[in-house]
């Protein structure tokens, strides 16, 4: 308290300085006068009395100085002076200042941009009330964990949980759906979610307008109500507050708008809610459940993300124990030979888990880039040290303390940091925008990323840290200058140079090591992506177009009419000149799992689907296999004569699984497609990567369109054509619309786009890593260039003497290269060693390539050595052009 008060008074003194000096002067004079008067009374002569008084008082000036020291805030006054000096120094060398500020701005900007992503995605709390209480409930069927470790929840189980569980205050369900919305611009497919009336209460979300769903609206028939998201409400209805109570047309029927969600509402994406859920990142609406639990198999339709809010004071373990008791009761009631369990995962960790590793890796990479920027600047400043030794020596001789010298030099680097940081925030602003627009959809909560107060604090923090980092070494060197040495011979003392040169070389080593690590990581990522794109998907995408179509159910109410539409559309497309073949499938490969069910041999106990391996079902037209280049391994594919016959085509893995040592053609098996049905296998086709590029093929059953009531009306038409893709696309669009102009074409793109989209996340990661690595290498080569050029410049005299004594140019050049390259080689070795040590950390992010891939390591080493050689060679050669006589006279 006392020292604070003193400090505040001192601050005030800054303003009243002169007044106080006058006051002190007056006090001193009075003091001496009083003393003199007393001396006079003691019998001294007036002159002697005054002399004695002044003698007794002592050194007035020294006292005044001490008095002033007590009065002022030394820091502030010298700081202002240091800043003035610093600005003058920076103005005096504009080239250095511009390079320093620009590289710093890039480094700080990139860091701030990546940090704002980390901040938005990992650090900012979820937009729900008391998120620690929220958790995701997933069901476990122990007999199936081999295929799916966990499942989403189903409606009947949810009802039981709601009735019986005490550990949860509330539980909500949600399933991603899409509905055809007929608005002003014609029919569009609108992503939404089907949720239980309890969901919003569970999450703790209050509506911006209107009311929540009522419990009775969960029942089918009463579910024609919707709650709109803020973005859809604004884009489609211009934020009209009187929208409540009006109706919109979804799937051809009217739905009453009962509420609008707040802008802060962000529902987690499917990648965050576990496998087998399917939420669009841009939800437009919520609708009630509309499911009758009594109509659903107790062990079927595991389609819903279940989010629970724990009752206060209940631990996860306690809730799980209670939940598992209830699960066991459900399994018993279902009376099937299968167990049921569950797991409870805190929502926050589930949402952020998968993204965390990649993001933290990027953050580490970008921090490495900033470190290189700092090392470079430290090097540049060190190069200027000898020139400033003289100044420092004079100031030391005049009485400046070491601390004062350090403060002066650090102020300069802090000024650079401040300018770089300010510009860096601008860079980050654009960087964040670029990242958001370039990023793949897999990154959770990316839309929420922005530059907020915390990000700005981070930017300021790293600016200061960076400035301190690159300023401390030069400051230390200057502060330890020997005044006599520096004054005697200016800047040419060889010993001084050698010490500084050693320091600068080791900094080069650090730069090269960091660049090497980044290059190796980027190389491994690139190689992973290349492996992934080269992986045998089992189908061929060259010259194949895919058009997603979605015949509206109200116009195509029956299987027959939908089939007719597809047949006509396929025929129309086939008639386009240049089209080789055309086919249809209900869900394209690489777009995730779907229609997962089971397949069994006749006589198997199919009452218990749960111990049968899951199989992906797809409905296709006869031309699909030929169009996609999926090889027929045995038998044949569908033909038109199969119409009405119960035949299927299976993938090779199913054939091997069911009939390991028999010819699968002509065999009978049971498929689970709207109940168990007996079908005959007519063909076996190759396995394909159905789920994702980096997931091995799953088992597939292909059905033909007509004999079965298939559920999915929407699907994709695939076209093999030799035309140019643009022309083909418009011809296909035209052909489909000739058949029915009201059928929305939701996507029309080459299959190569589908493939490339499926590796978006990896490509994004790879591009950023590559960008950072190239920046790092570029900065490091600048650093090498600077050090070698400077040392050649400094050693002209010595080189001249060597030349005059008969050294050959070639030898001198070799010497310079050797000296320039030795820290590079050391740094390279350190970087390779560090990469090996770090390898296990990134193994999970790689595909088809080992973390210690010798090819990548070798390529990186070659690139680093070549770039470093070039950076050394250019200044070395320039130095060699010098005439020895000129060099000798150079002094």
């Amino acid at each position, binding site marked *: 308290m*006392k020292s604070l*008060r003193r400090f505040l008074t001192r601050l005030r003194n800054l303003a009243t300085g002169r007044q106080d000096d006058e006051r002190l002067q*007056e*006090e001193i004079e*009075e003091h001496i*006068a009083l003393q003199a008067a007393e001396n006079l009374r003691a019998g001294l002569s007036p002159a002697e009395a005054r002399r004695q008084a002044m003698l007794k008082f002592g050194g007035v000036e020294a*006292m005044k100085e001490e008095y002033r*020291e*007590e*009065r002022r805030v030394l820091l502030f006054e010298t700081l202002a002076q240091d800043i003035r000096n610093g600005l003058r120094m920076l103005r005096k060398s504009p080239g250095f200042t511009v390079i320093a500020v620009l590289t710093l701005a890039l480094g700080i900007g990139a860091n701030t941009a990546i940090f704002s992503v980390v901040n938005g995605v990992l650090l900012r709390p979820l937009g729900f009330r008391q998120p620690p209480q929220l958790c995701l409930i997933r069901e476990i069927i122990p007999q199936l964990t081999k295929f799916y470790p966990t499942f989403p929840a189903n409606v009947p189980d949810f009802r039981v949980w709601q009735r019986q569980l005490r550990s949860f205050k509330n539980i909500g369900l949600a399933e991603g759906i899409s509905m055809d919305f007929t608005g002003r611009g014609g029919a569009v497919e609108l992503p939404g979610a089907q949720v239980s009336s309890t969901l919003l209460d569970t999450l703790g979300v209050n509506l911006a307008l209107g009311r929540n769903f009522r419990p009775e609206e969960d029942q089918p028939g009463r579910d024609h109500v919707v709650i709109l998201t803020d973005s859809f409400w604004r884009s489609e209805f211009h934020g009209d507050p009187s929208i409540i109570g009006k109706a919109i047309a979804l799937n051809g029927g009217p739905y009453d708008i009962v509420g609008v969600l707040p802008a802060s509402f962000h529902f987690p994406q499917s990648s965050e809610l576990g496998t087998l859920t399917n939420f669009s990142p841009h939800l437009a609406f919520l609708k009630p459940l509309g499911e009758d639990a009594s109509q659903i198999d107790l062990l079927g339709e595991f389609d819903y993300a279940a989010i629970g809010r724990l009752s206060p004071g209940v631990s996860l373990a306690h809730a799980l124990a209670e939940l598992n008791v209830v699960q066991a009761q459900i399994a018993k009631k279902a009376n099937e030979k299968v167990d049921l369990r569950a797991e409870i995962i805190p929502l926050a960790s589930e949402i952020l888990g998968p993204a965390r590793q990649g993001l933290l890796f990027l953050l580490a990479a970008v921090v490495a880039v900033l470190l290189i920027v700092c090392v470079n600047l430290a090097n540049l400043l060190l190069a200027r040290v000898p020139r400033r030794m003289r100044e420092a020596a004079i100031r030391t001789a005049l009485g400046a303390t070491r601390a004062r010298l350090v403060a002066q030099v650090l102020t300069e680097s802090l000024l650079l940091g401040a300018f770089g940081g300010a510009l860096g925030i601008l860079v980050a602003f654009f960087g964040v925008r670029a990242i958001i627009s370039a990023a793949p959809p897999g990154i959770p909560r990316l839309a929420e990323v922005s530059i907020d107060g915390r990000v700005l604090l981070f930017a300021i923090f790293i600016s200061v840290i960076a400035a301190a980092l690159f300023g401390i070494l030069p400051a230390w060197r200057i502060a330890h200058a020997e005044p006599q040495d520096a004054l005697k011979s200016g800047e040419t003392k060889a010993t001084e140079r050698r010490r500084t040169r050693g320091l600068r070389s080791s900094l080069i080593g650090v730069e090269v090591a960091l660049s090497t690590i980044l290059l190796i990581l980027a190389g491994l990522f690139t190689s992973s992506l290349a492996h992934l794109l080269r992986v045998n998907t089992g189908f061929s995408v060259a010259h194949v177009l895919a058009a997603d179509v979605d015949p509206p159910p109200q116009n195509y109410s029956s299987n027959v009419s939908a089939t007719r539409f597809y047949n006509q559309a396929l025929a129309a497309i086939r008639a386009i000149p240049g089209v080789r073949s055309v086919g249809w499938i209900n869900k394209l490969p690489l777009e995730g799992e779907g229609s997962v069910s089971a397949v069994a041999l006749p006589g198997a106990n199919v009452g218990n689907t749960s111990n049968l391996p899951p199989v992906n079902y797809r409905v296709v037209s006869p031309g699909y296999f030929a169009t996609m280049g999926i090889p027929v391994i045995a038998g044949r594919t569908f033909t038109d004569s199969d119409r009405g016959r119960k035949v299927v085509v299976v993938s090779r893995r199913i054939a091997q699984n069911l009939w390991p040592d028999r010819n699968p053609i002509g065999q009978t098996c049971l498929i689970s497609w709207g109940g168990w049905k007996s079908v005959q296998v007519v063909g076996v086709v190759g396995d394909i990567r159905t789920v994702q590029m980096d997931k091995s093929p799953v088992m597939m059953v292909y059905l033909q369109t007509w004999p079965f009531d298939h559920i999915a009306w929407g699907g994709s038409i695939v076209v093999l054509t030799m035309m140019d893709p643009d022309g083909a696309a418009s011809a296909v669009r035209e052909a489909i619309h000739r058949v029915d102009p009201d059928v929305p074409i939701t996507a029309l793109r080459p299959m190569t786009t589908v493939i490339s989209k499926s590796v978006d996340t990896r490509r994004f990661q790879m591009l950023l890593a590559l960008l950072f690595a190239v920046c790092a290498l570029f900065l490091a080569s600048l650093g090498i260039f600077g050090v070698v050029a400077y040392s050649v410049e400094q050693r002209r005299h010595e080189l001249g003497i060597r030349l005059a004594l008969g050294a050959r140019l070639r030898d001198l050049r070799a010497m310079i290269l050797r000296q320039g390259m030795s820290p590079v080689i050391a740094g390279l070795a350190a970087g390779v060693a560090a990469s090996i040590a770090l390898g296990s950390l990134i193994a999970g992010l790689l595909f088809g390539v080992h973390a210690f891939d010798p090819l990548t390591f070798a390529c990186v080493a070659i690139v680093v050595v070549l770039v470093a050689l070039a950076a050394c060679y250019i200044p070395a050669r320039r130095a060699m052009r010098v005439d020895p006589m000129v060099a000798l006279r150079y002094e």
Partner: protein
Amino acid sequence: MKQKMDVLQGTLALMILKTLDVLGPLHGYGIARRIERISGDLLAVNQGTLYPVLLKLEQEGSIASEWGASENNRRARFYRLTRQGRKQLEAETQDWEQTAAIIGRFFQVKPEDLT
């Protein structure tokens, strides 16, 4: 002539406070003279220390100052104890007595006391 002792570091502030407490408002010269006199002229108050200490005490709020007329009718700065200064004096007096008592005990200690 016996050499005068310089005032011990840190004790000058205490002496100033006590002097002001006993004698009421005084100017700098008066404070210096009284301290010298109270010490039986054994102490010499270094003016170079006195005024910075006065300033420090003022900035800490223990004393306050205002202009007044000195004995020879000139303007002089008079210092007086504030309420906070009085509290500080009490606290420091106690501290000092305690310290003195401890040191005193050490001086009185005999070998047999420690066995």
